[in-house]
């Protein structure tokens, strides 16, 4: 103890319960960072996808031409994500109903809108996948850390009870080791909470632009039905 406390000595010397807590927290931290990275990739690509697709959509290109390009991309085994999926679902349904020759414009509109709604909820589901896990880690891991701390302090005071001389040197390592559990808990929680809040904001942004696009697209389809 004279040569200064090493964190690793502390962890190795800790009681089994504290070690278990530390292990759980470390795992939570790693998994939450995996999700943070993965969500960052997905959400940023979704944001970029919204921008690029809106640009293409409003560039005055023929809608069937746009649909064909998407089909080509799909044939090259590439995924089509986000707004383009909604467009494709709505457009496909619209064309199909129109070819079946049901004269009722409202029914066609309704079918296209339904298809778009389904595609939208699928996309939303993809985007918010795993986000609840981040929220859970953010709110729970401080408690797990506190649990480890309480156990550790309890142990160190139990050890103190058997000592004749109650010096600070006797309790200090135990308490330090116990507080290390709280530190790790916070270390896991803080990035998770920050990422959750940030990603929720991005998610809201993206989904609201999806909804706006859906409305705009259905108004375009509506115009097409009533113009012919």
């Amino acid at each position: 103890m004279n040569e200064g406390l090493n964190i690793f000595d502390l962890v190795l010397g800790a009681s089994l319960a504290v070690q278990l807590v530390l292990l759980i927290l470390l795992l939570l931290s790693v998994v939450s960072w995996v999700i943070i990275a993965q969500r960052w990739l997905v959400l940023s690509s979704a944001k970029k996808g919204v921008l690029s697709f809106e640009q293409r959509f409003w560039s005055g290109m023929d809608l069937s031409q746009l649909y064909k390009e998407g089909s080509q991309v799909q044939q090259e085994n590439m995924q089509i994500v986000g707004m383009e999926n909604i467009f494709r679902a709505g457009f496909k349904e619209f064309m199909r109903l129109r070819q079946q020759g049901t004269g009722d414009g409202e029914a066609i509109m309704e079918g296209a809108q339904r298809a778009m709604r389904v595609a939208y909820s699928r996309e939303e589901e993809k985007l918010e996948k795993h986000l609840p896990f981040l929220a859970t880690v953010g709110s729970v891991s401080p408690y797990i850390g506190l649990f480890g701390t309480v156990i550790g302090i309890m142990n160190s005071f139990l050890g103190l009870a058997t000592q004749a001389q109650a010096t600070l040197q006797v309790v200090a390592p135990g308490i330090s080791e116990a507080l290390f559990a709280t530190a790790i808990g916070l270390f896991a929680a803080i990035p998770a909470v920050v990422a959750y809040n940030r990603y929720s904001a991005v998610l809201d942004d993206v989904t609201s632009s999806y909804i706006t696009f859906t409305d705009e697209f259905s108004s375009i389809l509506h115009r097409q039905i009533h113009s012919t």
Partner: protein
Amino acid sequence: MNSVFNNLIIYNGYPISIVAAVIFHIILLVVLVWMQSNNRMDRLELVQPTIVKALFIDENPQVRNQEILERQRLERIEQQRVTREEEQFRQQEDERQRLLEEQREMEEVALREQEELERQRAQEVQRERARQESITMEQQREQAEAERRRQDEEAQLQRQAAEDAALAAEAARTEFELVQSATALIQQALQQVWNRPPSARNGMRVILRIRMLPTGELLEASITQSSGDAAFDRSAENAVYSASPFTELQNLPISVFNENFRTLSLIFEPEDLLN
């Protein structure tokens, strides 16, 4: 959407995320280790020693007792030497007086005989010489005897002294150990409770004389040499009072206690402070 990015998230980006998270944690661990190894030097200086250094029993009671014994032995030898010298001196004095007397007597006899008989002188002189010779012989024999007796006496004394010393050494060794361990225990007890005031500096020195009962209870503690700092003196006194009773002393044989621990002089002198 460019194809590289699309490929990255082809499995929804899981592989790369896992790699990134693991690398992130490994880097954090390495940084932590590095900081620890850098911090260690600073921390070493801040660690306070758990024990209070430099608090000693003034004079080791055992050593003090041995000194007293040694002094007593020397005194005894001195005394013996003095008495022996006096004895010798007296003997020599007696001898001289007797010789003087004899000479006087001899002179008287010679005078009378001179007056009395002239013709018997030669014979007389002869006889006288023989007598004187015998007297000197007698004298020599007496001296030799005295010498022998003295030598005998001395040898016996020496033998006895050697025996005494061997016995005392045997007793002293066990006693020495007892005293040593008891002083160490007292010292430890005091070190644990001695709470130095902020005004304490290295090199301060207060000497306390304490008197104890065989049960280890403290009778009184008095400052024999103050450090000049009242708080420091008081801290030493408090340490002695709170460390007492020294129950370890109950196990000592009463003779050992009486000789060594009735009064004890304690020096309180910090030498481990940072300032």
